[in-house]
């Protein structure tokens, strides 16, 4: 397999995981950017544990999931049912704080970056196994009482409360799930690239994840897969002169999709028409 294809498939899978981590809390109307901070923390944890302590990959992965979930859990105690915009600010602020801590911590390489993370054999199949497992879990959640409750919260919070939905618990559950998924993505990213830089975890990454979620469609989990492949493919398909403007392309796509197709490329209605088995009853 060529190197370009290897990294394309690897990164796309990681971004799908991160897209799903954003998709889950958005089911209750929360844009949980804290996942980027979780990803940064777990990626550095993974890299450090592998290089300095010599921990095995499996142990690091379990540690990453635990750390991601714990960070989200602690924050969810305060923002479990907070309005979308408050959750946005908490996430953005946390990303900035984590980035600054990494930049100022010499042990983690500071602004230069953290290098020489050991490689893992057969990483790509492992990434796709995780992708499949997480996807299956999200599919099950989507089609469970929890998923339906979340849909009601998204449409009308007051109706959801009337129906007995505990918005705080539901929000906290999705946030913790998102943190755990971001934890997996962080660990896999560290081992895929074998190096880390604080510059990776910035507004650009948040904006890119927003594109993945909203261009693909936030009402189903399938939209994230489609848009991750399209958006990751853009720099490869176009000449480098055009590809270097990809942020403009992503931004324009985001604005256009909000204006012309607010629910994204893949919507629930579309799935109802195409595959009745995948529909929500």
């Amino acid at each position, binding site marked *: 397999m060529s190197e370009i294809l290897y990294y394309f498939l690897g990164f796309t899978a990681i971004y799908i995981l991160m897209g799903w981590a954003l998709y889950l809390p958005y089911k209750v*109307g929360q*844009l949980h950017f804290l996942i980027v901070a979780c990803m940064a923390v777990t990626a550095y944890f993974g890299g450090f544990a592998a290089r300095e302590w010599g921990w095995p990959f499996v142990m690091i992965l379990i540690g990453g999931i635990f750390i991601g979930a714990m960070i989200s859990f602690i*924050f969810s105690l*305060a*923002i479990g049912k*907070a*309005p*979308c*915009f*408050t959750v*946005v*600010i*908490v996430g*953005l*602020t*946390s990303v*900035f*704080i984590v980035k*600054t*801590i990494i*930049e*100022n911590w010499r042990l983690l390489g500071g602004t230069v970056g953290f290098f020489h993370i050991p490689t893992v054999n057969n990483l790509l199949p492992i990434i796709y196994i995780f992708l499949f497992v997480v996807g299956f879990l999200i599919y099950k959640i989507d089609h469970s009482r929890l998923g339906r409750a979340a849909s009601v919260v998204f449409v009308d919070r007051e109706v959801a409360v009337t129906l007995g939905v505990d918005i705080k618990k539901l929000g906290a559950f999705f946030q913790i799930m998102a943190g755990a998924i971001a934890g997996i993505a962080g660990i896999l990213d560290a081992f895929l690239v074998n190096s880390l830089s604080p510059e990776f975890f*910035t*507004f*650009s990454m948040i*904006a890119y994840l*927003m*594109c993945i979620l*909203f261009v693909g469609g936030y009402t189903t989990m399938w939209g994230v897969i489609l848009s991750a492949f399209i958006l990751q493919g853009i720099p490869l398909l176009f000449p480098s002169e055009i590809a*270097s*403007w990809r*942020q*403009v392309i*992503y*931004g*324009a*796509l*985001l*604005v256009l999709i*909000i*204006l012309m197709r*607010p629910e994204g490329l893949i919507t629930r209605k579309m799935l109802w028409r195409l595959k009745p088995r995948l529909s929500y009853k």
Partner: protein
Amino acid sequence: MEIFIAQLISGLALGSIYVLLVTGFNLMLLVAKIIQFAYPQIVVISMYTCWGVLQLTDNKFLVILAGISISIILSILSEPIFRKITSTQGVDINVSFIASMGMAMIIMDIMSHSINYGFPVAFPSEWVGGNLLRFGLITVSEGQLYALIGGIIAVLLFSFLLYRTNQGRFFRAIAENRFAACLVGIPIVKTSIFSYFIVGVLGGFSAILFSMLIGSASPWLGEFVALKMLAVSIVAGLGNLRGGLVCGLLLGIIEAMAVGYISGSWSNVIAFVVMLVVILIKPQGLFGSKI
């Protein structure tokens, strides 16, 4: 004590610019019912415009005019997009936030590709001014003083517009109750468009004061300022104009004090940690949300 006074002046100057930014942001939120995340990016574009004009001429009046004009133009150009969003999807501030994030991406990438090869730009010393006071390593520049005076004047002028004119009454009426404002004959669309104009003026002013205060601009500055502006608006309470005034000034002072007493880039984190703690404890803001 000298350090404290110098940092207080610097903090008040910075805080007054934050007040202008947060006021503009809140005005959009209250009147146009949108979250304009790209607003700080427009401010940075205006700073770049000022820098560009300064390369051509020394005429400060022209520089100020260009900076404010570009901010007004960009602000008004975004109006049809937001009007389309609010007309097709109702008043959903989250959707406007997502669209404005797309706009911010576009503006940021254009700046990092097209202007000065993506490198930060430095304003000439004639624009920033020399040092007025010096306390060891810490100085108070003319630019800081101009920013402080300019910020106070701009806030007073905006307060006059908001609380002493008919247009201001229209703004406040729409902010309180859009439907009732419509019933008493207030032109909603016209007032909404005018709010974009006012926000453009505020953005242009902020850009000029920012360029005098910090003396440089970079494509990533908007991201940084956006985060502070949004955090202040949440800490104060979304849409709370008086809260924004207090919290904007407080943020400026906290930041300046942190720079004065804590070394390195850790000082930047202090303000964010304070804001994060306040948000986590009081998600509706210190002064209560008006949305």
